[in-house]
């Protein structure tokens, strides 16, 4: 619903029924409270809250973390405008996009709190924040059976994203290189996605051969890993090019990232 609209709405369905009935149906009334708009904004309000509430984020440099979201958002809306999907699909895709991109921004905004610890603890804290954000998103969308499938997909993207960042940080702890880190992230993303899809497909789909399932999981995981990597890349660029964010990256990843 447009943000300017609230109050009593009348919805009329129409189709040609020929001799069997009228073209226009009886209007169905729905009261759309202004608060419903606010409910949809809750996930977005968490970002400014992280800026305001955390002292370490009261710095103009912090705003650079919004740049990847803006770039990815522009690409996303261009893709939506080009493909013209159904409104239901857009609602689901919005949830996925918001969760993955804003959730990742939120994780980095809380970086000082989750960094400087054992990598496993940092990973778990980041996962807690990321999944918490997914939960907030689902609740603000009026947790609904239509969103269950997409939330599973979101979960299947969140875990590999965090895992691949953690693994890349671990493998780069002695020798860091930006390209090396990006490649390691991509490879770990692909492998972890593949494992997840195999774990889902193998036990539950018993109708097809293992080879067919393996290859299908391979294709799906390659595609999703690619999407995740595209989402991650702008963040990595900001984390490595901006001094403030590089310091935070070092604190979370536990490595020195001044190498090229």
């Amino acid at each position: 619903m447009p943000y300017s609209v609230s109050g009593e709405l009348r919805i009329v369905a129409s189709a040609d029924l020929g001799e069997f009935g009228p073209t226009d149906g009886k209007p169905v009334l729905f009261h759309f409270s202004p608060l419903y708009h606010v409910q949809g904004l809750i996930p977005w309000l968490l970002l400014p809250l992280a800026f305001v509430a955390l002292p370490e984020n009261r710095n103009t440099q912090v705003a650079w973390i919004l740049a990847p979201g803006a770039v990815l958002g522009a690409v996303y809306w261009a893709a939506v405008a080009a493909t013209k999907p159904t409104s239901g699909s857009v609602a689901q895709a919005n949830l996925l996009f918001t969760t993955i991109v804003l959730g990742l921004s939120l994780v980095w905004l809380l970086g000082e709190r989750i960094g400087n610890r054992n990598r496993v603890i940092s990973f778990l804290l980041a996962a807690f924040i990321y999944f918490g954000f997914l939960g907030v998103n689902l609740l603000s969308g009026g947790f609904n059976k239509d969103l269950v499938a997409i939330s599973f997909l979101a979960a299947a993207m969140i875990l590999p994203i965090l895992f691949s960042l953690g693994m890349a940080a671990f493998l780069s702890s002695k020798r860091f290189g930006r390209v090396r880190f990006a490649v390691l992230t991509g490879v770990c993303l692909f492998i972890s996605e593949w494992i997840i899809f195999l774990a889902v497909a193998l036990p539950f789909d018993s109708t097809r051969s293992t080879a067919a399932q393996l290859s299908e999981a391979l294709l799906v995981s390659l595609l999703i890993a690619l999407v995740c990597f595209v989402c991650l890349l702008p963040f990595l660029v900001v984390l490595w090019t901006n001094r403030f964010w590089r310091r935070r990256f070092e604190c979370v990843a536990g490595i020195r990232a001044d190498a090229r």
Partner: protein
Amino acid sequence: MKQENTPEKSPSGLPGCADQFIEAIVRKIRYRRRVRLEVREELTSHFEDELRDCTSDDERGQKARRLIEEFGDAGLLAVLCRRAKKRCRPLWCKVLVRSVQAAGVLVLYIVLCSLRLFVGSPSLKVDYLAWLSDRTREGRAESLNAKPYFDKAAALVRDKELFDRGRRIAGVRWTDMNEPDRKILADVAQHNAQACEMLRQGVTRPHYWIEYETAVNEPTPEDAAGPGAHLDSRSADPAMAFNRAVIISAHGYRTLAQALHISIAWRASQGDISGALDDCLVLMDFGMHLEGRGTETEQLVGVAIEAMGHSAALMLLDHYGVTGLNLAPIQSRLTSLFARHESPMDVTGNKAFWFALIQRMFTDDGHGNGHVLKSGLGLAVSDWRDGVTSLLLFGYPDRREMTSRIETFWDEYQLVLGTEPCRPEYEERRAQWMALAQESLLLRALAPAQERLAALIWRLKTGRRALLTTLAVMRYEKDKESCPATLEALVTAGYLSELPIDPYCGRTFGYQRTAAGFLLYSWGVNLADDGGRQGTGQNGQPRMFADNGDWVFWPVYETPKPPKASTPPSMDEEKATEYRAVAPLNHTVRIERMGSYLKLDYELINADGKKYDLWGISEHPELTFSVYHGDAKIGVGKFEYG
């Protein structure tokens, strides 16, 4: 050795030997970093306390070495420190650690248990299509097979695009038809005369069988554009192989039967009632050739064709009467036909299919046994609880047990098919069979469809018996110029050797003399005598084989007239009648809020709120919605299917 002579000071201020000793202990603890730091601090404090009173470095060094000797082996001390630290953990920490360990052991156990499902491969030794071919052919000579004739006849069928219309017209009285309809009937009948003749020759062959393992590689219409599939009937997926083996003939036979049905109507309209009735018997015989052996699909096609023959025969008798007809030979031929093909359904094909599945889903130990593979889980477990229990206790049925279960399941089903629904043992057998179905997820999913199939078979058998009874009553009426007072009079007068039994009441069919002739009905699936009141469909119109009344075989229910011009062209006549009965229909929208989104679900309902399918009216409906705020239209959109 240097450190023993000249004690060095470390950053902590302790002698070098003490520092090295502490470092060795800390390194050998091999526990959390925090614990190691604690131990280091504690040991450092201990050494500092002990060395506080020493005045010189030598004295400090000597005392430190003495303390180290008292401490003993650093490795042993490290182990003791680790144990002590673990022992001193808070309760919540101990619980957490033990829980994680327990979960780890459980996961490991589950992984070990499930390994068996992934180890081994099936051995595809038996070609179950060939196995089924052997059982349907039973070593008979090829000259006895009607299939080549049926195939040739099916290949000769023309004007298939007119069949839908032609089939509907075939049920309408000649006098009620308009000129274009009559032309369609004539064209279809004349263009398919050769196909019908070939079919008549085919039914003179006593048997029918398919070489399934060969038929599986015959090209389907979908293959016409490409090279087609080449399946090895032994290794191919049974679902695909069994379907492919019969799909070509099944499709061709359906159109062939329709062609003969239309031809029957045409022949009757030209005054050749006797010839048309003969063709009805050909149609029934054609169906019966496909029944009682082979795959379930073929048998179902046979059942549908035979039922078409019953309906065509009753329609002829109703529309054209029996004047000038000699019904005795027809009744005699029918009696012999029905006796020859008493059981329309045989489950050997089903067994073959499921054995082929077992062969693919279980390993083979070379002695007829084996264990289940992951693809067979749906077959081996009954529900998720059984799945978990079987996984944890290695309790999956083995191959031999599963084969035996499948065999018993289908044998019990054959018993259900052979037991009249009115008999007390029917429910008992059905319950036994259903209990067997509950032992496997796949069988349980299959059971409702098989139940409907059993009902269909009994419907067909009821139709056979009713047709024989009707013919006998008509012969009596023709000879005595009045209908018999009771059905028993038919036996007394010699028109029937014994009275056919209604499978739904266990006695003779319901029968009444009426002003227009007679009423013959079965009690139907509600197993109650409704006095010959035909059951009704959802639209309130009388419907044959409905579950809320009797099944009236005579008089024949009048086919509705052709649809009015206002009905959308894509809508079939039966649906149009149903929708007209409940009109006016209304659009409505079910609204569900998802945060700041509104999800709109379209529904087409009647005045009572009952839902209908818009896609039944039009295949491509332009279905839109408009949103108004006050008087202003603030949005429009299209509903998407699905």
